[in-house]
Every structure is written in C-alpha cells, then in structure tokens.
C-alpha cells in the first residue's frame, strides 16, 4: 500500500556561505521570505520544516499552500526523497515521480532527440523503451520536425513542451507537483492540462503545491498550509 508517513520531521539547512551568512542584509532578507534562522555554535541554520507529523495514504490528494519560503518546496523535496530529514523519521512506500523543476536535466547543447535519449537513460529505459518514449514525447510535444535541432535554438515555449512531455511520461504511484499544471500556448495548455489530469487521476497519492484556490479545489481533497516551516492547518473538504 502506497503511503508517506512523517514522524516529528524537521529539516534544517546549514548556511555555509560565510561572508553572506554574517551579513545583516542577508539575514533580514531570509527572515522576510520565510524559514526560521538561528545560530548555534557560531553557525547559521535555517529551520525550513519544523516538527512535522503527517500521514499520507492512498486516495489522498493534498493541496499544499503557503507563502514563499514557508516550507512547501522543502516538504515536496522531502516527500520525493531528494532530501532526508535532519530530525525525525519519514517512510515512503510507492513509486514516486516528482515534477519539481520541468527543465531539470535539459541540455541546451544537445538536440531534442538527444535530450530524450538522455532522459530515457536516466529513467533506466532499455533501447526499445527509449524508442517508445521518444515517439511519445515528440508526438505529444508536436516537435517531430525539430527533433534534430539543438534545443538552445528552441523558444522557451518549445523547450517547455519538450520538458513537459518527458516529465509526464512515467505513471507513478505517488505524484508530486510544484506549481505546474499546464505549459505552452493556448492549444498546448489544453493538451498538457489533459495529460497531467490523466496522470493525477491514475496516481494513488497526489501532492500538489499551488497558490491557486481553483486548482486546489479542482484536484485535491485535503489541504496543508505551511507557515515558517510549521504545518499549520489541515482542512478536509
């Protein structure tokens, strides 16, 4: 059974950039955008998540909200397994796919086809699977005619189409999305929205960070609010 369980989890980022860490301006800017800053043994730390206990089970569709720097992205990275807690314990059961940064791993020096092969390799696909992956991505992104062109020559919209098609190929059991629902021009937005909705419907657990109330209500059945690293509110519909 797929699940994510957090037991008294805290995430504390050490601040290593000494010259900046000691500047008052830097400390103030961090204070304004979120995360508790504290000093211990003459070192600076940011407490991005503070003592979180939460159980996420199959069927849960969590909307995650909060101000910039409140802890949303750290929470998503933690759930995705990119980071492990500084304190506490987390259990993840299920195949996780995270759409935290669409352009991750996209290389401007390579062509669209090479980027697809690279990403396919990173998904540990066989040659056959890469070929299927390539057909699907090029077909969906409507970039068949640009397959052998370096993506540094692509417009931002074209790059996003490619990145979106590659990132949404795998059907995970746990899907983690940071603010991304649709990309590209109007036509492609409809298409990408449909693809991600399909993905969200198939997944057994959804964690979706979004500031939009409409998106939260449309796709989620539970809500978490973060404030200065604290999980403040869980409202059930």
């Amino acid at each position, binding site marked *: 059974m797929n699940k994510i369980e957090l037991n008294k989890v805290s995430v504390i980022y050490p601040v290593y950039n000494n010259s900046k860490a000691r500047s008052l301006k830097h400390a103030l800017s961090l204070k304004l955008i979120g995360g508790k800053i504290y000093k211990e043994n003459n070192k600076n730390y940011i407490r991005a998540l503070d003592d979180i206990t939460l159980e996420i089970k199959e069927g849960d569709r969590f909307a995650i909200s909060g101000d910039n720097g409140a802890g949303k992205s750290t929470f998503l990275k933690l759930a995705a397994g990119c980071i492990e807690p500084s304190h506490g314990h987390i259990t993840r059961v299920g195949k*996780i796919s995270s759409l935290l940064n669409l352009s991750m791993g996209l290389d401007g020096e*390579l062509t669209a086809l090479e980027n697809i092969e690279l990403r396919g*390799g990173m998904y*540990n696909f066989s040659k056959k699977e890469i070929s299927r992956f390539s057909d699907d991505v090029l077909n969906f992104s409507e970039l068949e005619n640009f397959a052998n062109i370096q993506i540094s020559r692509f417009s931002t919209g074209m790059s996003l189409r490619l990145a979106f098609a590659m990132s949404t190929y795998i059907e995970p059991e746990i899907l983690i999305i940071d603010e991304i629902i649709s990309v590209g021009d109007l036509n492609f937005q409809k298409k990408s929205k449909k693809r991600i909705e399909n993905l969200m419907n198939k997944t057994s657990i959804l964690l979706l960070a979004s500031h939009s109330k409409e998106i939260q209500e449309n796709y989620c059945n539970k809500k978490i609010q973060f404030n200065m690293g604290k999980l403040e509110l869980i409202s059930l519909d």
Partner: protein
Amino acid sequence: MIFFYDLLDVCKSWKVWSTIAKFDIIKKYKRSFLGPWWITATMGILILGIGALYSQLFKLDTKNYLLYLAINFSIWTLMRDSILESCQALIEAKNILHNEKQNILIFIFRIIYKNLIIFLHNIIIFVFLGFFILDQLSIIGVLVSISALFFLLIFLLPVCILCSIINTRFRDFYMIISNIMQLLFFLSPILFKKELLFTLDWLIYINPLALFILIINEPILVNQFHFSYLIYLIIYFIIFTCFAILIFSRYKNKIIYWL
C-alpha cells in the same frame, strides 16, 4: 550495509550512468570536425612533442620512449581526471539531486566510465605505436595489464567517492587535490624510468598512482610483474574502501544539504 545496497543499486542502473557519461563526451566534442577523436589526436601530439625532446634529454631510444610515454600518459590521464572530476561530481549534479531522488553513486560511476571511454581513445596511440615498435608481445603480459587496469577502475571507486563527498562539504579540497596531483605527476615514473630513482625508490611505494602505472605498463613493456606493488595496492585499496564506506554511510543523507 547502506553502501553495499547503494552499490548494488547503481550496478543495476548501469544504463543511467553510462548514458550520462556518453552524452558528456558527445557534448564536449559536438560540432567539432574530429569529434571524440580529438582525444586521440591530442594525446598523439603530446606524446610526439614530449617524446622527441625528453628521449634526447634522458638519452633514451626514441621509439621505446614514445611507447613508454603513450601508455603512461593514458593511465595517468585516466587516474588524474577521474579523481579531479569526482571532486565536482555531486556539485555539478546539484540540479538533478535537488529535484529527483537519485543514488549519488551514479555520478561517481559516470565520471569513472567517462574517463574509461577517454582512456580507450588515448590507448589507441599506444596500440598503434606498439604494432610497429614492439618486437615481441606476451599474451600473458597483456592479460595481466588488462587485469591491473580493471583493478585500477575498482580502486578509483572508493577514492572518487571520498573526493566527491569531501569536496562537496569543503570546497578547498579540489584545489588541494589538484596541487597534489600536479606534484604526483612529477614524482611518478611517467616521464622518467623508475630506475632513475635509485635510493629514492620508496617514493613509488608511498604513491598508489605510481604503483598502478608500473603494474599496468611493466607486464607489457618489460614482461615483469612485481607482486610487492600489488600487495601495497591491495593495502591502499582496503584503507580507501574502509574510509569510503565509513564516510558514505555517515554522511550520505547530509550531502544534499551541502550542495
């Protein structure tokens, strides 16, 4: 246990690191006329240039010296670049590690595999020269050298793991290591023959990179194999592996916070 679990996992995901390494090389030589053959051409030019001059300085037979340089430079480049690039391996993978759960060993294997591909391009010069220069070639010697090369690749693993983790935390480490590598280049029998060291031959035993050069080149070039070199290397390997397992198991989860 964590280390061996991750090691097994990274062996299963060989397509991941081999694909990334392949594209590292494709990217580097993209749009150039010779492509990855520039690696071979660069090594050829270097060996010819240095070989012609130093064979006169050391009063050595030019042909044999060229052969000696070709194998030594290829091994040295493999070791130096794997170690130096591993220092930056995790820092360069920051974007991926921040957005997706990945086994960090993938990025170490990527570096070693990429440098193995480069080595295979470089060693072509040695094979080419050997075809014309070597009077006789012992098949056993070749097999021993290949086995020693295989041991070198395994040896590089704990060394690169240590370098990558330490440099991710302490960014001065890369500068220290690059200085040490520069020093080791001149202390290792790469340009000169080990016999020139006379009473200073202990310098070889305290330098695992020099030992590797000798256990790889001697079986082919002079049909010799020193078991004492191998024993020293096994001891170094055990020490580095113990440290790598210890550091990896202890700090694996903290690495992401250092990026």
